[in-house]
Structures are given as structure tokens and as C-alpha cells.
């Protein structure tokens, strides 16, 4: 009977494709929007993810994220270095500056100053050039997304910039995760960054810390906080803080939430309507089957297999569509590093199951209510 159910479903091509479209579109909308949402949120933590070697971030107690930080006195570095369990501690500065390009345009950039000696604080990979270039005078390394934005269609290598009246030369391109706002990021040595960032008495944004063997990052944060009065967070905690900051301070969750909800509603509407029409068109056949002697349980199985088949194919198409979308735009700086977390297909699968269950149940009610005797009327 299940074969008959599938033939009934696929035989009415218009409705079959309509159902597939409904589920696929709904899945695509939910999966794609959730993927963009999660990846955008994660960009709130890009500053942390780009510094993979630091176990602990130490900051002023009022600092919240890698981009929202209150500067500390330089003595904070020595205080942290004095805490037992700290393997190493290096200064890290993050500031804003205006850059004048050779075309005369003005662009707001983020300046990140990394430890002069160890270069801890730089992204792991380089697309062009090497990290050694920072030892040359006035050198900066630009992030790849920033390079594409600031020098579209041209190589930034060797380009001279005017950074707050200071000379800077681009000598490398870093493979970095873009920030939430996709601001151009220039990496340089800490000592150089102090020249680029407008001066205040305190300039140290963070102290990056490596934990000694035998002590966990969490335990070290507690020690640092207790001993220095500064705020210390593990890498994961600080990354989560960046994500939370975006959730709390932007309308993004609401906007994406509305789109995901719309995807669900569109799915329910299209699939519900088409499935109801499909069942209504076949109600006489279902009635005849009931009269002939097909049990309600078998009929329910038939409707379930029809709904399940449409759901699985439509879901597969929707997820494939999302994968295609992400792949197609993978070279676009806006979508750099975007991936589909495994939880998202599960969420859209659950949404699809809900849509199919809801619409299938409504359709099944119509079939179950049909008396076999109706076929004689």
C-alpha cells in the first residue's frame, strides 16, 4: 500500500512539486538565515578567535568585548606576570584610527598592536608576506577582507598609508576572521601601535596570558582576578562575551528571528494548503480504499509516507540550497569563513518535521473523517 501512496503522491506532479517547493523553500530560508545569523554572531568573537594562542584575556573590569575595552595602565602587565601559573603574558592594544589612502579617501580602521618580541596577537595564517615584516619600520599587516575593501582589485602590498599623521606601509596580508562590522584591521607591533593610536595616559587594552602546565585556564582567571583586581576570562568565556554583546545590543536576533519565523509560516502555509488540496483531490480514492478493506492504520501510514517523502526530499533540497549558497559566496568577503554548524540542519529538520506533522495531521483528519459509505453517495 505504501507503493500506492507514493504513486498517488508523485502522480499528481503539480502538487508534488508544489509540496517539494514549499518544504525546500522553508528549509532553505530557515537554514540559510540561521547560518548567517550564527556566523554573524560568531564574528562578535572574531577578535578572540584570531588570537588562538592566548588561554586567558585580562582586562579592565569594565571591558566587555575585544572591541569594547577600557584601557589599563601599563603596570597591569607586570601585575599579571607576577601571578603564579602564568607561563607568559604579553601586552595587546586595540584602538581606532583614521587612515588616509593615497587616493585621499578617509577610512576608519582598527589598529591591533601585538607583542613586539613574540608577535603573539597576530592571526595564525598569512595570505601574503610573513609576520617577520613587522620588524621593518612603519610596517603594518592588513587583514584580507580589509584589503579587498580598501584596495578593491589591487594588491595592497607596499601601499603607503597615513595613519593619524603617521606613515604606515602595508607589507603583509593576514588570513583573519573579519569583525562583526567588517572594519579594516591593521596589525602592527605594540610599540608602533602606540604611535598610531591617539594617546591617552593608559593605552594597554588587554594582557594576553598563556597558562603554565598543570593549571587550567579557568583556575588561572580566578587567581589573576583575586591577585590583581583585574577582570580575567578564558578564551571561550571571552569569545562568548563577544557573541552575547551582539545579542544584547543589536536588533539582529529579532530580525533574523522574524525571518526564520516567516520561513516556518511560509512552509506551513504552502505545504498545508497544497497537502490539503492533494488529500481533498484523493479523498474519493481514500474512501474507496477504506470501503475495500484498508484499515485506518494503513491509511494513516499512507499519508505519513507521503508527508515523510515530501518532507525528506524537500528538506534535502533546502539544505543543499543552503550549502550551495554558502559555497557560491565563500569568496565574497562578507561571507568569509561562513560555515553551517551541525546544529542548524538539525533545527531546520525539526522545523520541517513540525511542518509536516502539523499539515499531515490536518490532512489525515480529513481522510479519517471520511466514512467508507461516502463512496456510494
Amino acid at each position, binding site marked *: 500500500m505504501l*507503493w500506492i501512496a507514493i504513486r*498517488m503522491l508523485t*502522480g499528481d506532479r503539480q502538487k508534488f512539486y508544489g509540496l517539494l517547493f514549499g518544504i525546500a523553500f522553508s528549509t532553505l530560508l530557515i537554514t540559510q538565515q540561521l547560518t548567517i545569523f550564527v556566523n554573524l554572531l560568531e564574528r562578535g568573537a572574531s577578535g578572540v578567535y584570531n588570537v588562538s594562542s592566548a588561554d586567558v584575556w585580562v582586562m579592565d573590569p569594565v571591558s566587555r568585548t575585544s572591541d569594547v575595552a577600557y584601557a589599563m595602565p601599563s603596570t597591569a602587565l607586570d601585575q599579571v606576570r607576577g601571578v603564579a601559573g602564568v607561563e607568559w603574558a604579553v601586552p595587546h592594544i586595540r584602538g581606532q584610527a583614521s587612515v588616509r589612502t593615497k587616493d585621499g579617501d578617509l577610512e576608519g580602521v582598527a589598529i591591533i598592536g601585538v607583542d613586539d618580541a613574540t608577535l603573539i596577537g597576530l592571526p595564525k595564517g598569512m595570505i601574503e608576506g610573513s609576520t617577520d615584516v613587522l620588524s621593518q619600520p612603519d610596517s603594518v599587516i592588513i587583514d584580507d577582507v580589509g584589503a579587498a575593501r580598501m584596495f578593491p582589485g589591487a594588491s595592497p602590498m607596499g601601499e603607503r598609508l597615513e595613519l593619524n599623521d603617521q606613515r604606515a606601509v602595508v607589507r603583509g596580508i593576514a588570513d583573519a576572521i573579519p569583525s562583526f562590522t567588517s572594519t579594516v584591521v591593521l596589525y602592527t607591533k605594540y610599540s608602533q601601535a602606540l604611535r598610531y593610536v591617539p594617546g591617552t595616559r593608559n593605552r594597554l587594552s588587554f594582557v594576553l596570558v598563556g597558562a603554565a602546565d598543570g593549571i587550567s585556564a579557568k583556575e588561572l582567571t580566578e587567581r589573576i582576578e583575586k591577585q590583581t583586581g583585574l577582570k580575567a576570562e578564558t578564551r571561550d568565556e571571552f569569545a562568548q562575551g563577544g557573541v552575547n554583546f551582539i545579542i544584547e545590543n543589536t536588533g539582529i536576533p529579532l530580525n533574523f528571528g522574524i525571518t526564520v519565523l516567516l520561513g516556518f509560516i511560509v512552509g506551513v502555509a504552502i505545504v498545508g494548503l497544497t497537502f490539503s488540496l492533494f488529500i481533498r483531490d484523493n479523498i474519493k*480514492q481514500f474512501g474507496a480504499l477504506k470501503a*475495500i478493506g484498508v484499515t485506518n492504520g494503513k491509511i494513516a501510514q499512507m499519508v505519513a509516507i507521503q508527508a515523510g517523502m515530501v518532507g525528506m526530499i524537500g528538506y534535502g533540497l533546502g539544505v543543499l540550497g543552503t550549502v550551495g549558497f554558502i559555497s557560491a559566496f565563500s569568496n565574497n568577503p562578507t561571507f568569509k569563513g561562513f560555515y553551517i554548524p551541525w546544529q542548524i540542519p538539525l533545527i531546520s529538520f525539526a522545523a520541517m518535521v513540525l511542518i509536516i506533522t502539523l499539515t499531515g495531521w490536518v490532512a489525515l483528519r480529513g481522510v479519517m473523517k471520511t*466514512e467508507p459509505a461516502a*463512496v*456510494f453517495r
Partner: protein
Amino acid sequence: MSGQNTTTAIRTRGVTRDFSAGQNTITVLHGIDLEVQSGELTYLVGESGSGKTTLISIMCGILWPTQGEVEVFGTDIYALSDTELVNFRLQNIGFIFQQYNLIPSIDAASNAAVPLIAQGMDRKHARERGVAMLEKLNIADQADKLPNQLSGGQQQRVAIARALVHEPRLVVCDEPTAALDAKSGRRVMDLLREVGVAEDRSVIIVTHDNRIFDLADRILVLEDGRITHDGTDMPEDH
């Protein structure tokens, strides 16, 4: 009668059926008592609203009577559980519907095989039996066609094949000739008699097609929920 060793195919005792219409109750059948023998081609004739569809629905186990008993080949069908009754219909009753109700997306042979598939027979063997039945009805050459590729008469034969393929003991037909011209109608009735009526099988036909009244073994006339005539011919006043 076409057979010698007949048994009672259907026995009804005091079958009454009420329907609710708002706050009113309408009695459609008034204590019907009848017996139908196997080997008979029985017509159930009456005007619209006379209760013939209700009676045939009750006789084949798809509509519960308000009162009374119905035995089909000795089984009190409304004493069975729901599942048993459904299974009883699947094993013992063949249906031919006025609008055929064939499944549009499967071919004629598969449509004919539906009761066997529902009984759990594998599709290949069921389809072979379906083709064999279509052969008896002289449309085996149409076995691979979808219902919408067949004429009304051919669809009717597929419906007949579906009703007979599982060799039921009771076949019920609802207006089998309503959509056919006189010649085709008589041909279908001849086929039904030839293939459907057997010693151990009974065929009951609901009709008001006076072109085929002469082909019946027995005619029951229903008026206002009561049997007013039971004979081999139609009464003269009809």
C-alpha cells in the same frame, strides 16, 4: 437463478437506520428483512432517497444500522470488531463504485490488483492476477494504461476487475451502467453475470437504469425505506 446449490449470502433482520438532521431524526430504513441467495444477480431499485444506498452500505459492512442484524455468509458482521469487519470486507466483498474511484496514478493492472495488495500480496504477483482478471474482461491490452487513458467503459471494466480479483463472495455495485450508453451498459451487465455471478457468490446491484432490468435474477424495489416489491421482474406500475 444461475446456480443449483445456493446458500444464503445475506440475511437482514429488522434493519433500521436513522440519520440526524439538526434536532430531527429521519428514519431512512424501516426494519428491513430480506435474504439474498448466492448465485443470484439481485437488483436493488428505487427512487432517489428511497434508502437503497443506505441499505447496500449496511449490507456490505460500511455503515452501521441503528437497529437490526446483518449476516453475510453466516457472519453477523456488526458483531465483529472494527478491525475484524474491515478485514472481513477485504476478504469477502468486492466493490464497484458509480464513479469507479480508480487511483489515477497507477496503471489499470495495478488498480485491478489493489485488494490483493491490501491483503498483503507482493506487488508483482498481485499485478499478474490483475492482468489475468483484465484478460477475462477482455481489456488485458489496456493493462499498462493509466485510468485517464481509458474510455469510461474500459474504466468500468477495470473497476469490475478490482471488485473480482480477490474472488470475493459478495459483489456490490453502485449504478454500474449510469455513465454508459445502452449497448455498453448491457455488455457490462453481461460481463458481470458471466464473471461475477457464481454458485458461491452473490452480486447485488443498485440501479435505476430500466434498460437493464430484464437481466436481473431478482429485483427488490425500495420505497421510503421499505421493500415494496420482491420478484424476478419489475412491477408494472414502475
